[in-house]
Each structure stands twice: as C-alpha cells, then as structure tokens.
C-alpha cells in the first residue's frame, strides 16, 4: 500500500512559497502604486499644464493675427468673430496632434493712444488641455510637512472648472457658477497687449531703389519736444547733440546710392556703402525688412457733407475740435485748388481728408490744426504748396492708399521752390524731390530719388506719431489664479 510521503514537508514549502509571493507582491504593488503616481504627475499633469499654456498662446496668436489685419487687411479683420459689448470673441478652436487642445480669445480696445489716436488692443486667451490618467492630486504629500507645491501650481480641474466657480468666466467675479468638466483638464489664461507700431521710425525708409540726396545735402535730426531745429550734429557739447544724430536711413535694397552727409545710421539689404566717411552712425548692409501695403483706416468717422472737392480757394473750419482717434473727416473727389484748414476756435483741432483722386493743389493748415490726408492717387506739388504753420511735421501727415492693382504706379513729386514740414507714408509710391528744399519730416516710400542740396531734418517726436502700420505684443501676463 502506497501512502503519501512527507506531507508535512510539502506544507512547509507551500508556506514559504506563499510568503515569498506575498513579499514580492507587496513590493510590486508598492512599485506600481508609486509608478502610477509619478506617471500621473509627470506624464499627465505636467504635460497637460504645459500644453494648456501652449493652447492659450496659440489662441493669442490667432487673435493677434486679427489685430494685425485691422491695418493690413481691414475688410477681413475679425471676420467670423462675435462682437458684443465692445469685445470680439471667437468660437473655441480645437487643435493639437489628437485635437484635444482647445483655445478661445476675446479682444477689446482698452485705450486710444493720446499721441496718435491709434487703438491699443487687449487679448485675453484661454487654453485648455485634458489631463489623462487617474483622477489623482499631485505629490504634495511627498514633501516635508506643511509644504504645498503641485496643488498651487498646476490647478487641475478634476470635476468642475475651479476658475469659473471662484472668479467667473471673465475673472472679474461676476457670473460665478459651477461648470462640470467632461474630463479632468487644466486651463490657463493669459492677457497680452498689442501696441501700435507707428510708421516714422527713421528719417527715410525706402523699400526699393534709393538715390540721394545730393553731394552737399545732409540728413540729421532734432526733437521738437526739446526746442526748434538748429544744426547741432557737429557740436558734442551742445545739449541737443544727442538728438541730432538720429537721421537714420533704411533701404531694403542693394541698389542704393547715398550722397551727402548722414548724421545717423544707414541700413541696406545687401548694398555696399562706398562713401562711409559721410555717415556718422552705424552701417549695416544686412537688414532686410518689409512694409505691407497701406489701407484706409477702418475707424474713421462719417465724412462731413461739404466740401466734397477743392478746385479753387476753400477754407475749412471744422464743426468740432475732434480727437486723434476721432477727427473731423472730409471726403474730397479732387484736390487741385487752395485749401486752408482753420482750427475750431482756439482748441487743438484734428482733421482728416480723404482724397479719392490726385493731389495737385496747395494746403495751408493753421498752427492748432493736425491734419491727416489719405490719398488714393498721386501727389504733384511744389514745396511752397505745403504750408504747415506750426512747423511741426507731425501736424501734417500724408498717407498714400496702396492701389488695389499692385501694377498701378503711384508717385509723390515735390518740386521747387519751397521748404516744408510734413511726413509721407507711401509704401506703394515712388518719391521724387527736386530742387534744394529744407524740410522737416520723414518718409516711407517704394523708391526714393532726390538730387539737390536737400536739408532733411528728422523730428524724433515722429517716432510716436502716425497711423498704426502694424501691431506688436508689448505686454504679457498670466492669470495664475
């Protein structure tokens, strides 16, 4: 008869095996638990937190593109956006490799520049990214007693949107409500400020070929905020010396013949400066830039009923002083006569003229008037036809509206005699200055030609003047609540 052998020994082995399995299982379970926590934090929460910022900044970029369109493509700016209460809002955009990131933005004008009337835009963007994995809080418990780290940094919404519940949808404390979230998520909010870029950052900015200004000519600068112009560029001890050497010339072409003295910097795009001893500042031949076409601003008011043309002597007295952002507008079909613009009483008066044809007539603006002239055609005048009684170039600004057909030529011809103070912005216009005028101002043009003994004095105040030609992000802040 066979009987079981050593049954008690088998039991011992079983106990040992179970004990070992228990120990290994406990270690394995502990490893798994901790790995899951690490993975949850490192791979899911950290990733979600970073992706939420990427989404928010992506939304900011989308909104920024719309802000830039307000000057570069006004008719399509904020197309498809909702406008309510002074705020443009877009519908949430979904993107990312798995289309799980969402962003939305709100844009409003919060300020009009007191110097040039341009709007400043505020962009508030929100980006949301999902947090995958387990609904677990961070690793605050792994720090020493009393420490809090993750829960203050990466605010994960596991069940409800904490921001809307605590601060409201716009963060101003109104309309607070409990909003469930479909899945755990992280939302980050940023605010960016778009500042207008004004056009006259250099004395002369030329997109194409450049020739000028004549062997005995000079380009220098001054600051009308510090007093009237006088030549100080060769007097280092003069208090206005530092203002006198900003007569910068920027040329986006290698075809550049620079003549005369330049008390400022010169930049070309691949050119070679052979008369560098006549240039006081820095020479850089590797500075490409672009200037977009110019379009009529979108925020102009309705025009006055008259006059509708200037074919002989016309005097305008605006019905109100207006503001930089809201000038009195006149729509002129032709401008071949003599126009005088008076101020509204003794107040600073802001006027805008939109000339749908060419400008061949003369203009006289009295000292308290600041005028912007938008020209659809070309300009052919003498220097003496540009009478700016204040002597401040910022008070008389010409803007050449770019033709819809890029092959259409547009020009600004200024002939002798006469000196003047004005600025010209014509990225699609060929500029020609004949004779020997003494002028205060700045120009942006397509091509430049001047062959006389021109005295060109750039007013540094112009750096803050003029209609916006682009926008830049000038402030960034995150709402970290």
């Amino acid at each position, binding site marked *: 008869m066979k009987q079981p052998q050593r049954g008690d020994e088998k039991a011992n082995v079983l106990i040992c095996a179970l004990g070992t399995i228990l120990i290994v299982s406990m270690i394995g379970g502990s490893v798994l638990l901790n790995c899951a926590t690490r993975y949850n934090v490192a791979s899911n929460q950290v990733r979600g937190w970073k992706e939420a910022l990427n989404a928010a900044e992506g939304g900011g970029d989308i909104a920024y593109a719309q802000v830039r369109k307000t000057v570069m493509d006004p008719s399509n700016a904020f197309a498809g956006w909702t406008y309510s209460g002074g705020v443009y809002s877009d519908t949430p955009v979904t993107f990312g490799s798995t289309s799980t990131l969402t962003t939305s933005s709100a844009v409003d004008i919060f300020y009009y520049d007191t110097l040039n009337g341009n709007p400043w835009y505020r962009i508030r963007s929100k980006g949301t990214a999902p947090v995958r994995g387990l609904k677990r809080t961070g690793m605050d418990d792994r720090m020493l007693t*009393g420490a809090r780290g993750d829960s203050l940094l990466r605010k994960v919404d596991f069940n409800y949107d904490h921001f809307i519940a605590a601060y409201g949808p716009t963060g101003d404390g109104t309309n607070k409500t409990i909003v469930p979230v479909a899945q755990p998520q992280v939302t980050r909010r940023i605010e960016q400020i778009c500042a207008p870029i004004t056009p006259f950052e250099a004395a002369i900015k030329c997109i194409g070929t450049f020739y000028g200004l004549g062997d005995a000519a000079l380009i220098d600068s001054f600051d009308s905020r510090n007093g009237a112009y006088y030549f100080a560029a060769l007097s280092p001890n003069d208090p206005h010396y530092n203002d006198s050497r900003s007569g910068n010339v920027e040329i986006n072409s290698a075809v550049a013949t620079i003549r005369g003295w330049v008390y400022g910097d010169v930049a070309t795009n691949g050119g070679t400066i052979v008369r560098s001893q006549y240039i006081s500042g820095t020479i850089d031949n590797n500075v490409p830039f672009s200037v977009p076409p110019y379009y009529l601003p979108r925020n102009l008011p309705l025009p006055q009923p008259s006059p509708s043309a200037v074919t002989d002597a016309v005097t305008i007295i605006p019905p109100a002083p207006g503001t930089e952002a809201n000038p009195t507008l006149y729509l002129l079909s032709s401008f071949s006569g003599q126009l005088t613009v008076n101020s509204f009483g003794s107040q600073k008066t802001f006027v805008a003229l939109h000339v749908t044809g060419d400008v061949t007539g003369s203009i006289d603006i009295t000292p308290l008037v600041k005028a912007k002239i938008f020209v659809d055609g070309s300009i052919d005048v003498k220097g003496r036809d540009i009478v700016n009684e204040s002597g401040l170039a910022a008070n008389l600004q010409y803007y050449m509206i770019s033709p819809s057909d890029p092959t259409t030529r547009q020009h600004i011809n200024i002939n002798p005699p006469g000196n003047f103070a004005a600025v010209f912005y014509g990225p699609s216009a060929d500029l020609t200055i004949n004779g020997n005028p003494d002028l205060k101002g700045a120009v942006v043009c397509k091509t430049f030609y001047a062959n006389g003994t021109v005295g060109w004095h750039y007013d540094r105040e112009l750096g803050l003047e003029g209609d916006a030609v682009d926008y830049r992000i000038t402030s960034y802040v995150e709402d970290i609540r």
Partner: protein
Amino acid sequence: MKIAHSTHNRLGFTLVEMTVALAISSIVFVAAITASIGLQKSFNAIDNFFATHMQQIRIIDYLSRDVKRALIVTTSVDLQSVSITVPQYIIQAGDPEAVANPSLIGTPRTPTISYSRSGSQVNYGSSTSSVVYAISGQSILRTENGVVTTIASATDQLIPQWTDVDLANTEYTNTTVTFLPIFTSANTAAERTGTTVCATAYLRNRRRG
C-alpha cells in the same frame, strides 16, 4: 508486520540530514531576507530619486511661469536666490482702485499706458509684485509680496541655481536644479551632476531693469 516496518523506516531524519537541511534553509532564508532588504532599499532610493526629480520639475515650472510674465529678474551673487518683479495684474485689498471701489478686489486690472523717451510702456497699477525664490534649509521657498510658499522640500540636498542674462531689451534665466541621491558612490559630485535638470525661460515683456 509490513506496515509497522514501513513506518519504522520513516521515523525521522538523520542528524546529518537535519544539519544539511538547516544549513541550506538558513542560507536560503538569509538570501531571501537580504534580497528583500536590498530590493526595498533600492526601491526606496528609486522612489526617492523620482520624487525629488518631480520637485526639480516643479521648481522649474514655477520659475518659468513667473519669468515669462516678469518685468525684471535679478539673481543673487551666489546664484542661490532670484528676485522677480511681475505686474500686479489682480487688484488687491489696499490698492488705490480697491480703496475707491472695494468690489474691484480680486478682479483683473485694466492697464494704463505711460510714455517715456524710450517709448510707451504698459503698466498694471502704480506698483509691481515681488517674487523671490530662495533656499531655506531643506526647502525651496517662493515668497510673493511677503507670502511664503514651500514649493519643494527634500532631505537629499535639493539645490537650485539661477543665472539671468541681460540682452538688449529682454533677458533670460537659466535654472539648474540638482540633488544628492540616497545611493552615492565615493564621487558625490558626479552623482549630483547626474541629477541635473536645467531650463531656460525668457521674459515675454520688455526688460525694465
């Protein structure tokens, strides 16, 4: 009787058998205990390593968030602390707006624009907020306007170092965080170097200092 005889043959082990069995069992037991302890220590070290690594990431994430929205970043000479000036985006109690209208406390502030010879500038209120990161014992502290938060702490010598580099109108901050793992060989410097986590963050605003 056959059965009795058979039972008699199974009465027990010899002394030699017992000794050998005991020796082998002891060896196996000691090996198992040693392996368990080693495994536990190894797990503990790895667990601690990654827990501290997560704190490295947290320090960097905190700092990057603050640097991006900063106006000024200044590091100390010993690179052990960094001071950051950030816009005061949210209206706080005691601010002029809050004094005039207490309901504005906790709401975003509308910025104002000021002009200087270097151009225009966006301001959130008349003052700014101060954020300081510093080491205190085994902890890394973040102090914003006097409110202290321990953002990281560990017993394995967590050390962040900050440097800031000024550029024409911006600056960036390099952050390097190291620690000394529990398991180290004789070359502790190399062990610390092996834990290095670094990151660079740029100011999104124009530098003001």
